[in-house]
């Protein structure tokens, strides 16, 4: 796990300044705190910061197999690298290290982009071919690892794991992208290739972007999630597949831990990890002071039943308030929820306990239909087609108070969006997210958006197959592409854990597990009485029965109280003042005071206003720290690089 970055010039005679690369290294140091490396050549500079997990001695980057040959900077892990290395050796390839980096480099050299489907893992990479002066940027199937890039007016390409690296280079200036922000305030994250920064793009998950001669010459998928596939899963049952995915993800030369939420998915992974590992497993959990959010009794039960060495991080409102700014800085985007804050604090706790790799359960709810949105869309469709069934909507979300599920609730579920809308499944959430926040936009922001909302743009980007999918398949695709990658794996995932140099690993996001899940009969995932049916069946053999049967509890953290309680930090009131809001220029300073007043008076109980508060406050922090005149600026990395490649050398000196 690492950070990568670089600059490639359209004009090879224009040098890339050493200082720019060292500033990029400094901006990515949190992702790779164990050291960094550089590669420099005519009109090209690459940088890598490393979190050492595999081959602690030999795995430094940038990596090159031979003088004058292609160069790789690589962030992430390919878990089947031992098997791929064995294949390469059989083909006569001599490998110098035990790293997955070298395996990927040699595979790319031999097979080009056709090598990508062989890789089982989570990675983002940049591959520089000196001969054709071609840079290829690649991102893993589900977009676990980030990769951002910007094309300058002169045709140079600047890239980096995080946008901060691009800005640190001095080649790209940060400015808000209003459509990217509107994505956040509608579906919780900017959808790739768009970002919240103007003229900064992300490589889309499962895509490769190729730059050559001053322009992007290729931007296409090498893998895409086929949620409508109908393969027969009988030839490969779930358990050995999931077991193998866990086994591969325990591969590391450091100890691996696990996040334990107390729910089905993380508990199941922990049980499998214990069986597949010969080392004691340490588990980490967030516990909340507020019982509405707390799952610690379940966590303790699972940890005790499985015998893990369990660590609990207790989080209260003041922890959320104190940790908010740094979380937003690392996320590099406004947030609609505070939930990423405890996840960052949990990563910090894991790091303090000496754990730099954690297995975690993301993906299971998308693959095995655990999220409420799947049950919800089926109930909403029934209520549209058979209005007599509208009362079924009241049975959704049993954890909410009865009164909260009154007429407003039924209206929100039944009236949100046209039944013929391809985004029918996601309208209630999008409407709830955008209702208050969107109403607070400044008039000039509204004009610049020109009536084109985030969902309008999403409708225009749907895959051709979308029309042929049913409600659940559509909702699955939308969850994967509009929530999992842009938010859960990003602000709440990679950016939260890599803030402290901790790598999350996601056994459910093994593409083989995904393809298996998509091939299951629907009733094996969602029946009239249960969700995640196949997973629960497996869990009954490995977990206490009440854990295997436990309904999902959405992971959330307190949203209003941390910023308006007695311990609220002073900067909050300043950031929400009319003058500060006007200076940022996204929200109407006066209008937002109505929301601030209701938060201060303790009146806000609903999701819409809570999300609006977090959206407005995080936008203020994000703008100040990333776009404003006082934004974060990185000094040059001054320590010695662990490796420096001279890309203009055609022969390596051999030292004794």
């Amino acid at each position, binding site marked *: 796990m690492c950070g990568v970055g670089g600059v490639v010039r359209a004009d090879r005679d224009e040098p890339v300044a050493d200082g720019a690369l060292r500033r990029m290294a400094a901006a990515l140091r949190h992702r790779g705190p164990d050291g960094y490396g550089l590669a420099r050549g005519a009109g090209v500079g690459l940088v890598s910061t490393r979190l050492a997990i595999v081959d602690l001695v030999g795995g430094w980057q940038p990596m090159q197999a031979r003088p004058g040959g292609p160069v790789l900077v690589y962030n992430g892990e390919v878990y089947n690298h031992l098997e791929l290395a064995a294949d390469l050796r059989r083909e006569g390839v001599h490998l110098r290290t035990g790293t997955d980096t070298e395996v990927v480099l040699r595979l790319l050299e031999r097979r080009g982009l056709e090598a990508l489907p062989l890789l089982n893992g989570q990675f983002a990479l940049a591959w520089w071919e000196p001969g054709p002066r071609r840079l290829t940027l690649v991102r893993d199937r589900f977009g676990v690892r980030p990769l951002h890039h910007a094309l300058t007016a002169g045709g140079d390409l600047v890239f980096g794991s995080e946008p901060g690296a691009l800005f640190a280079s001095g080649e790209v200036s940060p400015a808000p992208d209003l459509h990217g922000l509107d994505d956040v305030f509608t579906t919780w994250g900017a959808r790739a290739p768009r970002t919240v920064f103007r003229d900064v793009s992300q490589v889309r998950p499962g895509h490769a972007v190729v730059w050559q001669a001053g322009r992007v010459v290729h931007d296409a998928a090498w893998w895409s999630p086929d949620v409508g596939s109908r393969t027969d899963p009988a030839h490969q049952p779930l358990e050995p597949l999931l077991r193998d995915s866990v086994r591969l993800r325990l591969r590391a030369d450091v100890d691996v831990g696990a996040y334990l939420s107390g729910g089905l998915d993380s508990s199941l992974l922990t049980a499998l990890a214990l069986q597949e590992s010969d080392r004691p497993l340490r588990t980490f959990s967030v516990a909340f002071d507020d019982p509405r959010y707390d799952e610690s009794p379940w966590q303790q039960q699972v940890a005790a039943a499985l015998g893990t060495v369990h660590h609990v991080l207790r989080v209260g409102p003041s922890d959320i308030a104190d940790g908010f700014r740094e979380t937003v800085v690392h996320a590099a985007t406004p947030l609609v929820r505070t939930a990423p804050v405890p996840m960052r604090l949990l990563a910090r706790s894991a790091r303090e306990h000496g754990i730099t790799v954690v297995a975690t359960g993301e993906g299971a709810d998308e693959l095995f239909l655990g999220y409420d949105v799947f049950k919800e869309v089926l109930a909403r469709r029934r209520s549209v087609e058979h209005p007599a069934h509208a009362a079924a909507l009241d049975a959704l979300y049993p954890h909410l108070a009865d009164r909260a599920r009154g007429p407003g609730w039924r209206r929100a579920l039944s009236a949100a969006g046209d039944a013929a809308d391809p985004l029918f499944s996601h309208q209630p959430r999008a409407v*709830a997210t955008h209702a208050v926040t969107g109403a607070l936009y400044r008039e000039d922001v509204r004009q610049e958006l020109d009536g084109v909302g985030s969902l309008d743009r999403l409708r225009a980007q749907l895959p051709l197959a979308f029309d042929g999918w049913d409600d659940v398949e559509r909702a699955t695709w939308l969850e994967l592409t509009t929530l999992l990658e842009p938010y859960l794996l990003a602000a709440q995932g990679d950016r939260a854990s890599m803030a402290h140099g901790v790598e999350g690993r996601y056994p459910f996001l093994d593409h083989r597990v995904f393809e298996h899940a998509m091939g299951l009969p629907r009733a094996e995932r969602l029946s009239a009485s249960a969700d995640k049916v196949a997973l629960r069946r497996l869990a009954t053999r490995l977990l206490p029965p009440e854990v295997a049967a436990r309904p999902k509890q959405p992971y959330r953290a307190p949203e209003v109280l941390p910023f308006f309680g007695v311990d609220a930090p002073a900067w909050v009131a300043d950031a929400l003042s009319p003058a500060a809001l006007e200076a940022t220029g996204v929200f109407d300073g006066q209008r937002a005071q109505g929301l601030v007043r*209701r938060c201060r008076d303790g009146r806000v109980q609903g999701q819409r206003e809570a999300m609006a508060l977090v959206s407005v406050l995080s936008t203020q922090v994000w703008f100040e720290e990333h776009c404003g005149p006082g934004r974060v600026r990185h000094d040059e990395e001054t320590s010695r690089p662990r490796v420096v490649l001279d890309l203009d050398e055609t022969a390596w000196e051999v030292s004794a």
Partner: protein
Amino acid sequence: MTSTSRTGSVVDQMRTFVEENFLYLRPEVVLGDGDDLLALGLIDSMGFVELVEQVQSRFGVQVDDAEITEANFGSLAAMGAFVARHGQE
């Protein structure tokens, strides 16, 4: 107080409450007595609960869960009529 004047008082008080708490989002809206508060997008399900709580605490009316309907709380006029009906019981 007559039923009519009590209804008027309820409507005026609830108008002030809605204006202070929900119209910050839509300051251009001039709220009519019969306007559908949910359809206007001014309140959500929790906002609806706030209306019920306000009616209970301001006017001393006990509201059963079964009475939490749009017919009773969906507009200022509906709330006025609801309180008036309870006053007659």
